[in-house]
């Protein structure tokens, strides 16, 4: 008789300490190491975020998530600032609302947010008015980069949230095919010397595309459907299954429209993938249904 004994032990599972902060005059307790954003979420406050993602290290650059913490001269980014015991936090003061509104106006006045519905919702919430800027202003103008059959890059839509750079870099893929180049308003996400993607280090895992909040990065499949006006997100079903290629066991979310897989993503909270896939899991579906 064969038996294989089990082990359930995982190291470092000591009792978690908690800290209590005051948000908008209500006490909230969160585990030590949690951010202000976590604490806001725990108390049911919906905080806008753009550069933050659950599966990436916070870079805190968009500043749309700022809150007011008593004793701090400036507002603080809730996505990266750790909750400390006794913090007094305001999430909806005039100062906070003003900064959020301005960040959204700044982005709206610079890039094409037409495929960033979440950001647009924030803009409505904070009454961002992009019409009040100088007409003849600088905006991001870049040609759409279509350099292969899998991706397109449309940097007119790029809000420079660094997510793609992080996903391609040491938060996940460690390929570092893209980085931010330039300085100031001229910053662009770029390969070295802007070489075409197939000549770069890119391995087409699509992890950058998956995290892009504005559709500046798109799968070619989606881009083509959108261009022919047949992308109908509201009709799509999303089914979670397991990749068929290697034995790692990545979970795939198959986005299906008209009985055809049109996009593949992975759940960010899955312990194996943390939202990431490789080229096979991401694009290897194309034989299904053929």
């Amino acid at each position, binding site marked *: 008789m064969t038996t294989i004994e089990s082990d359930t032990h995982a190291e470092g599972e000591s009792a978690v300490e908690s800290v209590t902060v005051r948000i908008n005059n209500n006490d909230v307790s969160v585990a030590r190491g949690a951010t202000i954003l976590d604490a806001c979420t725990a108390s049911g406050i919906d905080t806008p975020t753009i550069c933050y993602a659950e599966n990436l290290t916070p870079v805190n650059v968009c*500043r749309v998530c700022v809150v007011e913490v008593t004793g701090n001269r400036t*507002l603080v980014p809730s996505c990266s600032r750790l909750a400390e015991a006794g913090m007094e936090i305001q999430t909806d003061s005039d100062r906070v609302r*003003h*900064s959020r509104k301005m960040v959204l106006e700044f982005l709206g006045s610079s890039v094409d947010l037409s495929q960033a519905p979440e950001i647009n919702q924030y803009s409505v919430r904070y009454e961002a008015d992009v019409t009040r800027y100088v007409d003849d202003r600088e905006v991001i103008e870049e040609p759409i980069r279509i350099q292969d059959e899998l991706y397109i890059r449309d940097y007119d839509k790029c809000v420079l949230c660094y997510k793609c750079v992080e996903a391609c870099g040491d938060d996940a893929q*460690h390929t570092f*095919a893209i980085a*931010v180049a330039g300085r100031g*308003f001229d910053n662009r996400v*770029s390969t070295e010397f802007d070489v075409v993607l197939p000549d770069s280090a890119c391995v087409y895992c699509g992890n950058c595309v998956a995290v892009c909040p504005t559709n500046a990065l798109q799968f070619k499949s989606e881009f083509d459907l959108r261009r022919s006006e047949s992308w109908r997100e509201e009709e799509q079903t999303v089914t979670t299954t397991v990749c068929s290629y290697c034995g790692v066991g990545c979970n795939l979310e198959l986005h299906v429209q008209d009985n055809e897989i049109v996009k593949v993503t992975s759940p960010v909270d899955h312990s194996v993938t943390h939202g990431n896939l490789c080229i096979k899991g991401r694009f290897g579906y194309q034989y299904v249904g053929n």
Partner: protein
Amino acid sequence: MADLKLSVDTSTDAERAVVDAVIAPADHAVVYETERVVRGGTERRRERRHLLLPGLHALQAEAGWISPGGLNYLCGALQVPPAEGFGVATFYELFRTTDPAHGQSVHHVCMDTSCHIAGAEALARSLEAEGERVHRGPCIGQCERAPAQFIQGRAEPDRVPADAASIADPTSYRLPQHGSSKLRLLHRVGVVDPTSLQSYHDHGGYAMLRYAIEIGSDAVIDEVKSAELLGRGGAAFPTAVKWRAVADERGRPKHVIANADESEPGTFKDRIVMENDPFALIESLTIAGLTVGADNGWIYIRGEYPLATTRLRNAIEQCRIAGLLGDNVMDSGARFDIELRRGAGAYICGEETALMESIEGYRGEPRNKPPFPTTYGLFGEPTAVNNPETLLNVLDLLEVGGDHYRTLGSERSSGHRLFCLSGHVRVPGLYEVPFGIALGDLIDLAGGSTGMTRAVLLGGAAGVFVGPDQLDLELSLEAVRDAGATLGSGVITLFDDTVDFTALVLRIAEFFKNESCGQCVPCRVGVTRQHEVLVEMAANGALSDERNTLIDDMATVMRDASICGLGHTASGAVQSAIRLGLVGDRP
């Protein structure tokens, strides 16, 4: 790290040679020990990444640009992903990533405040007329001799034409206050031979290091504390608090850094000290290192200071030979050495965390704080960053004792302060006075204004304009703060009534637009939109109520939500100019 994909190697022999001088092939991040054994790995890559900036300097100097082949070879040697290497190279003003297609040196002409009103554009044009290559850029720290230029050499070393006299005779430099017995910080400038350790010894050098070793770390920090020394780099942070925090960190490597990036328009004090009394910076940084228990000292000097760089290099070398740096500093048993790093044209790299990123071989993008550098600094290790002037004050306060030092200066600001006077003043230059002197008295010390003073810019581009009605303003941190102004890095720039303030303020706005690292949205877009509103204002001749509200709205978000001090201060000068009626034509 990464399994790099490098492009086809097109580097030239010369490019490889200069990179090899920065990192020898045998020390590359990946080395073939035999055909079957290759050593590499994460740690080796991390340890070498900081050589990226020196490597880029070497390539730029050799080829006049960072060519794909050159970058490729450097990235291979250090195992830095080429995309990141490109991102770093494109961050800095002194590096170019397109072929210049010429072999000439490039004249960088300053377009900022003092040079702006002193005929910078005319200088640039005349150089162009002579067939020189000109790059119009930001302040290069020679405001007292405006209009200024710095020559980025091709087949010749970088140089500043105005340095010729000092190079010919190293003790020839003359401060306006030369010979004054009141000088405590600058007393050796123009007196000591800056190329000679012996001369520094002869003028009392290294007595304070000996004393610091004698009394020990805690006593030194106590002296600094009782002196109530505040940092001179702009933020006026208590130095003793910073040192104590780093000293209390145990068990990890630690660092002290002299922040000699000095890029605030109007500032040139650190340059004059480093060119004329370099050993004083070495000695005081060594004291800082020994006091906080750091083995590693760094001087981050801006790339446009060739003479100061040469003098410091020479000084470090002499100190190593004399046992004043190295494994057993002055027989104390302590280890301390200094590494000199050149910036490459980026104002933001003066911000202490951007500076660390820059040294580490990344883009000079400031970090969000906390964590603060005292716990998470250079390479993630505890670090104390100080301005050279702050360090110079440590020599002074140790000599006279903290308590006595505290009696110098004003009510809340102790000690002497260096002020950089330029613009419409009769004797521009560096002045040392106790904190608390009236603005007008300081201007008088510099021979007074050359015309009818219309405005004074305090604190540089990141500061604010004050009007002629403020000449009795006491120059102390407390009084200036109450007046809604700042001393910043000690910049005082005078403008008389001939100045076209619209053009001047536009230039200040342009400075921020060019110098923002662009990392955070409020600053990246804010400085751009601010500049656009001012361009529109210049065309219209006036600023409407709506536009004025927009300026204020943008200023608020930049101050409230930007990551670093650049964004926080990017509207100060503009708003004050509007308030004072210098621009905008508002009631």
